[in-house]
């Protein structure tokens, strides 16, 4: 890794000052995306601002129909402690491996918005709110395609609110080596409608309107039988062709609905 300066602020205000002190800066959470990227020199920040000493960024609290989770909450903690949202806990327990889950954080995953990451599907399907040092953004506006989000440079995610649904489930076809989603489908049924989010299949997480419409009719596996995505906008790579992903999304949708009903 190229040398850099490390700042370990204790408050969000100090973190923002450190970030803007000059040169290229990056926020460090669990480091399980950023440090590998720095080793391969995809990222070469002059300054790393470590968020681990900033108070108030971890923990899970229920407020009304929202479950708020601090940005620095590690995947392992969500897997065991997000009992008010079992589908989210189950998603977290399937990220990477136990050692990755002991370091990686919710905020880091959502800020990074890897097109094959798991959390973005949950944030989008659960009608999430991303709270940051600059305000709040609805999930529908937050995710903007491959590795792109509504975050401005240096804006820090503080916590994420998930709307607690009547029923929900996540089904993913895991890449056998990395455990990232080849395709993952998160289905959430609310009193005012169904939301379906797809990760892994396209350049970024997106909602699947045809599946939502079908499930708003009847929330059953039969209602989505035979439904597949349009392959035109999907990824083709060494792991899977666009056609394969289109078909796989239908299978994952069926599994998620079966697990949710």
């Amino acid at each position, binding site marked *: *890794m190229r040398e850099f*300066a490390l700042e*370990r602020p204790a408050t969000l205000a100090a973190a923002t000052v450190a970030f803007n002190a000059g040169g290229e800066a990056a926020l460090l959470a669990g480091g399980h995306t950023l440090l590998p990227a720095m*080793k391969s020199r995809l990222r070469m920040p002059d300054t790393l601002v470590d968020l681990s000493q900033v108070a108030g960024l971890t923990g899970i609290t229920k407020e009304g129909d929202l479950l708020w989770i601090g940005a620095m909450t590690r995947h392992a903690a969500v897997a065991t402690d997000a009992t008010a949202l079992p589908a989210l806990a189950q998603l977290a327990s399937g990220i990477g*491996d*136990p050692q990755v889950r*002991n*370091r990686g954080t919710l905020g880091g995953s959502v800020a990074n918005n890897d097109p094959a990451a798991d959390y973005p599907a949950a944030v989008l399907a659960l009608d999430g709110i991303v709270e940051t040092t600059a305000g709040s953004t609805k999930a529908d506006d937050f995710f903007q395609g491959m590795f792109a989000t509504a975050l401005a440079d240096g804006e820090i995610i503080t916590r994420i609110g998930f709307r607690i649904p009547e029923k929900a489930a996540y089904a993913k076809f895991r890449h056998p080596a990395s*455990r990232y989603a080849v395709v993952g489908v998160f289905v959430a049924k609310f009193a005012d409608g169904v939301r379906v989010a797809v990760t892994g299949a396209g350049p970024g997480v997106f909602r699947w309107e045809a599946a939502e419409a079908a499930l708003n009719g009847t929330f059953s596996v039969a209602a989505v039988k035979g439904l597949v995505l349009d392959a035109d906008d999907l990824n083709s790579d060494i792991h899977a062709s666009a056609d394969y992903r289109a078909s796989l999304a239908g299978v994952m949708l069926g599994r998620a609905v079966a697990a949710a009903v």
Partner: protein
Amino acid sequence: MQTKLTINGVAATHEVSPATLLVELLRDGLSLTGTHIGCDTSQCGACNVLIDGVAVKSCTVLAATLDGAKVTTIEGLAKGDELHPMQAAFKENHGLQCGFCTPGMVMAGLEIVRRHGPNVSAETIAHDLEGNLCRCTGYQNIIAAIGAGAKAMGGKSNA
């Protein structure tokens, strides 16, 4: 930068650069070469150590961000000549061949005991070894070793 760590029970202040990975401090700085680097891309688990009792890939953590933490490496498990029960189980169950992956496997085994207790099933062990690669054994004896080690530990996390 300075970072205060208690490594295998020894508290000391270490001078590190911000970019020093924990595994680099252990191996190059402290000659604790039992912790291995198999991939350096966060995939193989050969570098697993315990930080405050929790297993972590030491190739993907900056030493300077751990100020105040307790680190346990493979060197910290045995009591003199007496192997830790998880180490003894690897020996008894032929849980290794070349031994390169073994330190990371033993640490992953301790993590499995911490999370699942002494009576963990072979299926759970296999599942929880997703972050550990072995190019020799075919995993069967590693799974058996961790199961036996878990029982021998009797549910104590012991690290």
